[in-house]
């Protein structure tokens, strides 16, 4: 088939080409129209099929098998799920630990973030210094170095106990190795990293029209009332974003629990986060099939929480452009 070509120095504009000899077949036209898009998309498409969709489906399959990596997977039907829901007491414990962590760390972190964002929004001097200072732990917090530091700070003769001894004269326990307190140290670590939601709150606060506050104080509304009636409703979309994002992140927490607990979720499984348990099942015990089942259960849990957040959002999140 002859190509409609126009190489002899003429204008490259398609309109200028006289449509003479062979009209393009629809197929060819469709190809030419779509080809550039798919060329650009190619690396992502490869990754999507080979590293995301393919593995996700594979793990769904593996979740119905027993697989130790050395011998081929053996189909066991719903065995893994049955074991997970009915007999695995360590999993029950891991769920309890993870939920405790999520339910404490997320609201507290967001409350601190919002509180300081509001104070920062009103202050004129030093905003950028404080903002940077508060953000720094968020940036560093995911590192092993900080987790190592945390072990020492909350150790038996660590910084926290020294401060307690100096101020109250009370000798505190070894927080990280005490099953009752070890989880608290990780929750504190999460709260310490409130910087990034705070920045998002701050950006949101900057978009709240100031005249609303002026009108409100003219009408005699106090600070609390202004917070409830103006700030919170106007910030609802940002609160929503932070809530969903931080909840998902909290469910996925791994590194800090691994380091602080010495890799095993100890003492006596008190910091056995879901991700840590999954990791140990897969890579320490080589129960790849069961670990895959755990991954899918986690996906459903996270999906469930996200769905609740989205479904409930229409009652408490209103976007400005909805014209209400």
């Amino acid at each position, binding site marked *: 088939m002859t190509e409609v070509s126009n190489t002899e120095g003429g204008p*490259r*504009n398609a309109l200028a080409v006289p449509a003479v000899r062979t009209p393009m077949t629809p197929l060819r036209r*469709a190809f030419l129209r779509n080809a*550039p*898009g798919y060329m*650009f*998309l190619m690396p*992502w*498409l*490869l*990754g*999507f099929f080979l*590293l*995301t969709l*393919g*593995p*996700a489906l*594979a*793990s769904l399959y*593996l979740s119905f098998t027993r697989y130790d*990596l050395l011998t081929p997977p053996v189909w066991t039907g719903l065995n893994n799920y049955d074991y997970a829901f009915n007999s695995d007491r360590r999993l029950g414990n891991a769920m309890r630990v993870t939920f405790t962590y999520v339910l404490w760390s997320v609201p507290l972190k967001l409350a601190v973030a919002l509180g*300081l964002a509001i*104070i*920062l929004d009103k*202050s004129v001097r*030093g905003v950028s210094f*404080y903002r940077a*200072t*508060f*953000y720094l732990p968020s*940036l*560093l917090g*995911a*590192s*092993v*170095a*900080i987790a*190592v*530091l*945390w*072990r*020492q700070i909350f150790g038996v003769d*660590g*910084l926290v106990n*020294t401060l307690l001894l100096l101020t109250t004269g009370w000798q505190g326990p070894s927080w990280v190795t005490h099953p009752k307190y070890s989880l608290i140290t990780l929750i504190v670590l999460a709260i310490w990293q409130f910087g990034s939601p705070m*920045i*998002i709150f701050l*950006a949101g606060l900057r978009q709240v029209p*100031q005249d609303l506050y002026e009108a409100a104080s003219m009408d005699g509304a106090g600070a609390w009332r202004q917070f409830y009636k103006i700030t919170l409703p106007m910030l609802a979309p940002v609160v929503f974003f932070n809530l969903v994002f931080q909840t998902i992140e909290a*469910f*996925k927490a791994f590194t800090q629990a*691994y380091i602080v607990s010495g890799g095993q979720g100890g003492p006596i499984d008190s910091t056995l986060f879901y*991700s840590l348990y999954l990791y140990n099942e*897969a890579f320490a015990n080589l129960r790849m099939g069961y670990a*895959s089942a*755990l*991954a899918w259960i*986690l*996906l459903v849990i*996270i999906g469930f929480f996200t769905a609740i957040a989205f479904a409930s959002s229409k009652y408490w999140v209103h976007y400005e452009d909805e014209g209400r």
Partner: protein
Amino acid sequence: MALKPVSAKQALFRHTVLFLASIVMLYPLLWMVMSSFKPDSMIFSDPMALPTSINFDNYVNGWSALAYSFTTFYKNSFIIAISAVIGNLMACSLTAFAFARLEFRGRKFWFAMMMGTLMLPYHVTLVPQYVLFLKLGWVNTFLPLIVPKFMAVDAFFIFLMVQFFRGIPREIDEAATMDGCGPWRIYWRIMLPLSTPVLATAAIFSFIWTYDDFLGPLIYLNEMKSYTVPLALRAFIDSSGGESLYGAMFAMSTLSLLPVLIVFLAFQKLLIRGVAMGALKR
């Protein structure tokens, strides 16, 4: 910003809160730096005290306390992190350009898929990816940590770039098309040069996240000669189990934070804007 005059009492209250909060935020870090200069005996016997002298012994000892020195670990970390930055910038910007600017069938569908992967917890692909890389013989190499970045697996960056590209006026590339520019030239000569802020943001975050990554190296790198800095720090805790090497451990921890700290000090504004941007332009 503040329109109405604030009473002096309120201002004082705010500044006190902010000041105290910054102390709480920074003190742990300062304590680590201080401890890294103290002899082991002093770290816990007198934890609040300033070091009596600036003593680099801990740094010298820590650097070569493991079977391989930290030279190796830093080299490994930087190779992986810089490759990841390059991969992410290339693959994510290509993808984002397709989504933001090109017309093709199924664009909406693939975009929705991409957004879906944002929500997918990594656990779901963890085991099969490991099996795949094991079968390819890539375990104990850097490839499992680098190659996926060249396939734009970090959808967050695609999202960030799509947002930015959409903000560039379409007239610019329409004019270029009129002049006979193909999509590749528009991408390379127009979009990328106009997008340096978002590319820089993506580069910085991708450097920090890869540098800090623990789970990936933990799974794929089992030999100490290919350890990254975070893995080496972990090995430190294991090997020092006895209470002897705390000073060295603090020294190496401090040092390991340094690259991130430098990036933070240099690109603070960009980072903070990046965090705010990811959320609000939805």
